[in-house]
Structure formats: C-alpha cells, structure tokens
C-alpha cells in the first residue's frame, strides 16, 4: 500500500507541479505524522486543496514503519545527517515588501542516542569450531558491548543449535518481511482512533489483528494477566476468592460514577491506596494498577478508576483483550489517512521541504511558503510538525523524551500453545526511580516480522538514554548471551533510540502566526488518542464550520460529471478545475 499511494502522490504532483506553484493552496502540511495526516485527510475530504511536503523519502515521519533493510538505511541516514546549507540567497529574493520571512529548521533532532547491537551470527556456520571467528562480525554499527558479546558466544550444543538459529544474513535477506515501527502503540477498541477509522471509512484501507493476551512481569517471571471474564475463569494463579474479588472490583469500575460513596474519601489519594483499602490481595493490586489501569504509583484514584473503566469498556468489542493492532504495523495508519487525502485530491511530495514561511507584516499571517527549490507557494494555512520549528520561534522547550528499544527475537517471552499471538507486556518499574516499561511482542502473522521471529517493541518515558532505561529490562526478560559457554541468545538484534516527546507543548509554546498550526509528535502513551484529538482541534481551528472526517462515500455512490480523459478518481477533476479556493473565508 505504501508504494501505491506514493506513486499516486508523485504522479499527481508531476502532473500539476506547474499548477500548484502558481495557485493558492488552502492547506500546506509539512512533515506528516499521524496528526498531520489526519488533518490533511479531513481538509481534503471537505474539499480543501492540500499539499503535503516531506523532506524524507518515506511517509509518516516519526510514525513511519520500515522494512529491516529500510530501517538499516534509516540508521545510516541518521548517523550521517548533517545540516543542509541554507539557500538563503534564493529565497530572500522572493520576499516582497511588507512581508517577513520565518525560516524553518532543516535539521530534525527528534531522534537521538541511537544504538544498534547484533547478537545473531552473520552467516550459517557449518563448522562449530569456526563459530567464534565468524560470529563477531555484525552490521551496521559495532559497539564495544556487542563485540564482546559476539566474541564470547559459543554455543553449548553447536551442531543442533547453530542450524536452527537465524543469522543476520537471513534477517537481511528476509528484510522486506519486517515492518518495524518507530512508534509503538496499540489501538483501544473504543478509542478515538478506532472511532475515527470507522466514522471516516478509512478503516477500509487497513486490516487489524486482535492482541491475544496481556502479560506482566512480576516476581521475576512473566505471567498472564486475567482481565476478561474468560481469563479470570481460566486463570490458574488466582484463588477462587481472588477471582471473586477481582471480578467484583472490575464490575464496580465499569460504572464507578454511580457509586461515589465507594471512592469519595480517596479522590485526593493515589489509586494504589484505594486498591489497598479495597482489601485486594497483592496479586490483584499488581494486575489492576500496572496491567489494567496501567497507571503509576502516584496516579490519583479517580484517574485510575477512569483508566480501568476505559480498559474494561474496550474488552469484548473485537475479542478478549481491549486492543487492536494494524497488520503491517502502526505506520499503516498515517498512510491510510494519506491515501484518503490523496483520493480526495491531496498532493504528495516527498524529498521536498519548505525553507521558510512568508508572513504578511500587517495581518501577521502566513500567506505563502518557499520550498527548497526556491518556489513560492501561496497557502492560507500551514500545518507543521514540531521538529521543523526553530528555537527562535519557541517560547518553551520543555519537552520530554521517550525511550525506545526494538528487538528481534526468535522465541516468545512466554511461549504458549499458539505462537501467533500479539502480546502486550506491562513491566512495572524495576526500581522505584525507574520508569514503567510497556512492551509489545508482535508475531509474524501481524505481518511485521519474518516467520520464526518476534518483533518486540519497548517503550517508556525516558529518565536517561534509551539504552540505560531499557537494557536492564531486556536482560531480565530475555536471554542475552554475555557469558561464555551459554547457549546462543534468543535476542537476535536490538536497536535503542530516544524520541522527543513534545506532547506537553501547545500553541502558546510558539511565537508563530495564527494560521501556522504546529503539531506535536507522538506521545509516550499506549494509544494514539492524543494525536487524534489534536488533529480534530486543529481541523476545527482551520475550518470551524466543517464536519471532521465525515464518512467517505462508497465508490458506486459518486457522480462523475467531468467526462474528460483525466477523470481517473474521485476528487481529481474537481480539484484541477479549482482555481482560487475560498478558504480565506474563515
């Protein structure tokens, strides 16, 4: 799908590059992540002309999803990234009198501390003796630890184990079977994203898989969290009395607002204390706090109850857990919206970015943008991702970081009857100062990794570098070979990086014209609701009187009145005939 929409976009761009350079656009979207894609789709859907520009050669920005090989070249790019020399001379001449230029940042600094380690052997080894010599070669980046670990790995039962193990070569060869997301999130089955996908009919562009089980790490081992009725019934680790207490508590949470007397003494106190007061056993407190409500030790009672309630309301809509995951990775979702945008006439343009904004001095509004090729494009709104904003335009730089790790493993963290389940694992803080970690283990039937492997995403809000935050968790949960004589590692490949979390910022954090809409990047929460709500609010800001993503019509219900040879798709004809868009009406 990625390829199709890219072609679609480029095609339209080439066809009409002459056209859009002289006309006025209603919305120009820059660096499209999920939020920007949704805004673009929503605007395009109600008839606005939308131009989508991206400096990258792939879609969805930090929300992108890569094949293994794609990810390796992304890593290469990251390592080599240097500031592009600015073409100030070119665009200076395009600024008229009474206009100001606001340059955009050319360097994306939202990703940092990238580290890669490979534990898989490079090639198949036929002679066990040579093993030690061949296994220490790894790509693409070699670090100290990695070399050590590779040198030291010598399998206990080489003849059997070596044959079975997946090599680095194999990962690269099968690389296109991987769809590795930079952002790891799940979709609550009654969350804002699912609602929007259904409402707008965008869901038709994607397929989804249910998360099969919810696990947690407790007392040194991974165990299943009983969260649905069937889980509680089947659970072997709970006593019958615990089963009753858990079900009773969960039933109460479903409509806790109806029973304020139960929790009113605890509104100012942490949820954790409320659970204790409810006489729930430690088992149950752990499950509810960390795996069902998924809140911290300090979260207040009402918020905890709300989180529990949301979790429970999502249960059973599409299966026994509250979550869905898009096949081929989360990166599909922004692309689905891009497709919708393109179907309704949006124009896409990769490897192309905006150099500066042209601001009218009198109205203090953006009236045009100047791209890297020195073209001036008029537009009435400009939507941009936070990372393009220069520090001069910022009022506040109070952003956080997200720590991420991506692992390729060759066995599940908790093997079970079915090896084709997506598991969500909640890992409470290992020490009181450490952050809680969220882990999603994707199986090959989710179309994100090659058969025989699992793609594991770890996410937490950073307290330091990603590796510092997550390596201890990985070593607890997975067998990573570091000691000589041990059997080979079940982790084949690891990547750590930090991603900037700008979700705490809002429009007051920037000193920009009012028709520049800055979208913050992905946040560290499990779901995408934040980004969807942001998209909706930006959309209503741009077009206060329009409906946000009304259902797209079925192809058979569309009337084609332009019968020219160009009438290839809906929205195509109309937008070419559009000369000056009346979006300045607002």
């Amino acid at each position, binding site marked *: 799908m990625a390829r199709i929409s890219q072609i679609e976009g480029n095609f339209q761009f080439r066809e009409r590059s002459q056209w859009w350079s002289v006309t006025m656009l209603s919305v120009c979207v820059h660096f499209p992540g999920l939020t920007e894609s949704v805004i673009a789709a929503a605007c395009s859907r109600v008839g606005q002309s939308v131009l989508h520009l991206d400096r990258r050669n792939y879609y969805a920005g930090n929300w992108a999803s890569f094949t293994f090989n794609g990810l390796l070249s992304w890593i290469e790019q990251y390592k080599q990234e240097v500031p592009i020399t600015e073409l100030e001379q070119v665009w200076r001449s395009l600024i008229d009198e009474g206009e100001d230029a606001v340059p955009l940042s050319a360097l994306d600094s939202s990703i940092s501390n990238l580290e890669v380690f490979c534990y898989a052997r490079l090639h198949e080894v036929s002679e066990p003796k040579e093993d030690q010599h061949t296994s220490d070669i790894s790509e693409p980046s070699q670090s100290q630890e990695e070399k050590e670990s590779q040198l030291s790995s010598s399998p206990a039962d080489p003849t059997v184990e070596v044959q079975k193990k997946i090599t680095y070569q194999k990962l690269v060869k099968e690389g296109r079977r991987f769809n590795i997301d930079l952002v790891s999130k799940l979709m609550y089955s009654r969350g804002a994203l699912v609602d929007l996908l259904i409402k707008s009919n965008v869901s038709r562009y994607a397929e989804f898989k249910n998360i099969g089980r919810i696990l947690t790490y407790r007392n040194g081992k991974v165990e299943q969290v009983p969260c649905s009725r069937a889980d509680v019934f089947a659970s072997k680790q709970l006593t019958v009395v615990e089963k009753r207490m858990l*079900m009773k508590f969960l039933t109460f949470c479903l409509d806790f607002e109806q029973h304020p007397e139960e929790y009113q003494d605890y509104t100012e106190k942490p949820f954790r204390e409320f659970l204790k007061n409810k006489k729930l056993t430690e088992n149950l407190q752990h499950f509810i706090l960390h795996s069902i409500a998924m809140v911290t030790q300090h979260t207040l009672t009402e918020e905890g109850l709300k989180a529990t309630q949301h979790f429970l309301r999502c249960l059973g809509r599409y299966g026994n857990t509250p979550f869905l995951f898009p096949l081929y990775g989360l990166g599909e979702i922004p692309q689905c919206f891009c497709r919708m945008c393109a179907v309704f006439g949006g124009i896409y343009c990769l490897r192309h970015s905006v150099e500066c904004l042209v601001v009218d001095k009198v109205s203090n509004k953006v009236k045009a943008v100047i791209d890297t090729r020195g073209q001036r494009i008029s537009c009435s709104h400009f939507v941009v991702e936070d990372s393009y904003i220069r520090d001069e335009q910022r009022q506040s730089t109070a952003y956080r970081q997200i720590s991420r790790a991506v692992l390729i493993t060759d066995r599940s963290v908790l093997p079970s009857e079915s090896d084709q389940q997506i598991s969500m694992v909640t890992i409470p803080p290992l020490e009181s100062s450490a952050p809680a970690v969220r882990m999603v283990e994707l199986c090959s039937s989710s179309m994100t990794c090659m058969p025989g492997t699992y793609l594991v995403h770890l996410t937490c809000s950073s307290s330091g570098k990603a590796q510092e935050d997550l390596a201890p968790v990985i070593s607890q949960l997975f067998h990573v070979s570091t000691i000589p004589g041990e059997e080979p590692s079940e982790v084949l490949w690891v990547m750590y990086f930090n991603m900037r979390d700008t979700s705490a910022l809002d429009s007051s954090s920037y000193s920009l014209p009012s028709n520049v809409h800055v979208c913050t990047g992905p946040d560290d929460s499990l779901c995408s609701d934040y980004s969807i709500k942001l998209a909706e609010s930006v959309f209503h800001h741009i077009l206060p009187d329009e409906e946000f993503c009304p259902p797209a019509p079925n192809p058979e219900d569309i009337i084609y009145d332009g019968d020219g040879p160009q009438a290839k798709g809906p929205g195509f004809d109309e937008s070419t005939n559009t000369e000056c868009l009346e979006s300045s009406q607002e």
Partner: protein
Amino acid sequence: MHGRVKIKSTAQQEEEKRKEKEKKLKAFVSARDAVLKKRSAGEHDEEALQLTRQLLSSNPDFATLWNYRREVLLHLETLREKDEVQKLYESELHFIEACLKVNPKSYGCWHHRTWVNTRLPQPDWTRELGLCDRCLSLDERNFHCWDYRRVVVKASGVSVEQELQFTDRLIGSNFSNYSSWHYRSTLLPQLHPQPFHSHRVCEEQLLKEYELSHNAFFTDPNDQSAWFYYRWLLGRGVCVCVCLELLCICEDTSAHPMLCVCVCVYVCVCVCVCNLDDLHVCVCICGRSELSVEKSSVLQAELQSCNQLLELEPQNKWCLLTIILLMRALDPLGHEKETLAHFQTLKEVDPMRSTYYSDLCSKFLIENTILKMEYAEVRVFSLSNKNLTTLCHLDQLLFVTHINLSSNQLLRLPPHFAMLQCLEVLEADDNAIENLEGLYHLPKLEEVSLRNNQICKLSDLESLASCTKLTRLDLRGNPVHRTAHIESELSQLLPRVTALSL
C-alpha cells in the same frame, strides 16, 4: 462549494435500492415458478439443480426446494459412477456451506447436510467437525449446529475424551454456555463412571469438576449455567423402592379405586394407586432429599466453599439456594435455623420468586417434621406457626392420626390430603383456607377445627359429607357464617356433626 466530491443523495440511493430489490424479486418469482413446474412434470435433471441452487442461495429456508433437490440427487445417483457421485455430493456440501452463511440457523440446510452425509460414499468427518467448530465459534448457542455435531460425532466415532476436551475449550472461552456444560454432564459418566453406579461420576473426577464450577461461580456468581451444573454434580435424589408390606386400609372398595400403601426401605413411602386385579401397575412418588448422599466430607467441603462465596456475596441467590440444599443433604435438622434465615434473605433479594421460596421452605419444614416424627415414633404431626404455604409429602403421613397446621398461610387442603386415611383430628386454625377438596373420604376423621379461615360458601363444605365419622366441626371466624340459614343448611348437609361452632 467547489472541490467536493459529488455523491448521490439518500433519496437517489434508496430509489436505486428499491429498483434493485424489485428486479431481484421478479427474478426470484419467475425462477420459483419454473422450478415448481419442473417438479410437477417430474423432471430430475441438472437444470433443476442449477435453478434450485440459485433460489436456495438467496433463501435457504425454502424446504420444498431442498426436497426437490434430494429427489434430483437420488435420481442422478443411479445414473453415475461412484467417483462421480462422490463429487456430486461434495459439491453439494460446498453449496450448503454457502447457504449456511446466508442463514446459519436454517433448518433446511442442516437437515440437508445430514442427509448428504448419509449418501456420500466417503464422508469426510474431520471436515464436518471443523465446520461445526467454526459455526460454534461464531455462535456458541446455535442448537442446529449442536444437533448436527452430535450426528457427526456419533457417525465418525470421536472419542469421549476428545469430546470432553472440546467442552473444556468451549467452557474456557465462555462459561455461560449451558449447552457445553450439559454436554459435559453426558460425557463424564461415560468417561469416568463410578464403580457400581454407571450413571454417576467417580469421585476423583467429581472433585475436579467441583473445582471447575467453583472457578465459574466465583468469577460470576450470577451466571446460572455453572450453578445448574454444580447441582447436577452434587447429585439428584435417587430412590430404590422395594415393597416390603402391602397394607390395605381402605374399607370402601366400591366408592373409589383401591388405595394401597407400600412401606419401603430407607423410610421412603410410596403410594400406589391401583386396581385390585392389577396390583403390579404402580405409580411411585418418592424421593425426599434433593441431593444424593455423597460422602458427607465432600459435601462439607463444598458447603465451606459456598459459605466463603456467601461472605463475599451475601445477596447472591444462587449461592444461598445451593447452601440450603447442601445443608439439607448434610444435616437437615441441625441446620434448620440457618436454612430458615437463608430463605428469608432469598425472599428479600429475589422477590419475584418469593412464593417459590415459601413453597420450598414449607416442603423442607414438612420433611424435617416427618424426620422428627419418625425418630419419636409418634402418629401426631404438628407444624403450627411456621408460615407454611403448601402441603406436600402427605404420602409420608399415611399413619398420622392427629395433624396440627394452625397459624400458617395455607390457602387450601389439596385433593391428595385425602391420602391421610388414618386421620382422626385436624387442626388448621388461623390460615387462609378457602378450599377443602382434600377432606374427602377420610373414614376415621372425627374432629375438624378451621377457625379464622376464608371459607365463604356452603358448597365449599360439601366434601365433608363424605367423611362419615365427622362429629365435631369448628368454623368460627369464617365468612361462611354470614350465609342465610347456615345452621339449618349445615345440619342438613352434615347430619352426623353434633358439635358445630359457627
């Protein structure tokens, strides 16, 4: 506004849909007529299959068409080689699958599928089981599919063990599925029979099953499936009657069928209504305890589990009721007080069924009194001021001479009250009795006290005329005394009554 995709209006869409529908209907009707014509002409050819196929795939509930199809298939079968027949019926199975997608609860489809499998030279049962699993995963209560599955299991000889695992799986995914629990209850005695009692389940397996039901009702105590299964596990009363003694106490053989009494082992009393010349035809009414006598240690443990649940869920009716039954099985007299308290709670938490609980409670009280009476070896039965609402187990009171039912909530003396052939004195003051049907042909009845009841009409007292020894009758506080000339009418009706109080 410019730049918008133009779409058809709802009216336009509806108009199109309507036209589409009309067209479809026309096509359906003409095809139907063609098929019926072919059938009456006795044509059994490929075309008939083709036509019925079209019709059935849009409406699989057209039974006539399935019949016609069977006729055609049977005819074609005679014309073809075995290989071809196999192919013919296999394609039929595929077709039925498509129809089931239209209506998974179509009687015609499932019936036809069963039939096809009987005709198929080499049926593929594994595939059929797979189909059932798929259907049940979509709707676990599709009883058509359950029925069909039973046929498949029987035909293909799936082991009982596998079937038990199948119920494990279904119950695991949703334990509110009574079909699976019930199926389990039919499989267990086959797989783990109790020595000497093949219809019961051996103890080792029973304990596992108890645990399974605990898991279910602790998870959701309001779900009745598991409770019913649990009660089945605890066992229903099973009585073996052996006639020891035949006692004829009826003197008037001409008036009504002979009434005989057999006294049986285990203090169970059976009443056999039979003709003199047809003694071996007996109707047994027996069984006093709801739960069979399992090892009392097991029942004790179960009672503890239920009490544990009751502590957490003091309002749960299923739990309360099960506790009552367990207590009765263990020690009915020892637990009488608690039982009564539980009944009180039951009536409060489940007011819709309060009368049912009252009746059940009456039954248990009567049982307890009978027990006490048996220990004491007396022929006096006294149960006053106990809120009785119904009378039962009268069959077990055949030798009683004195009955005291005063201060209860009885509404009537039911016809089977007439079984108390030895009864001499009846006290039933302060009830709400308005019907005396049961006071009929009681040959030894001498004294009846019905003070403060609801007897309204003289006709209500007519049955008393058949009790020939009745001499004392107390009707004070009944509406009947307001009837005109009551005294004279009564003396006419009951001439032998010498002491009448009104």
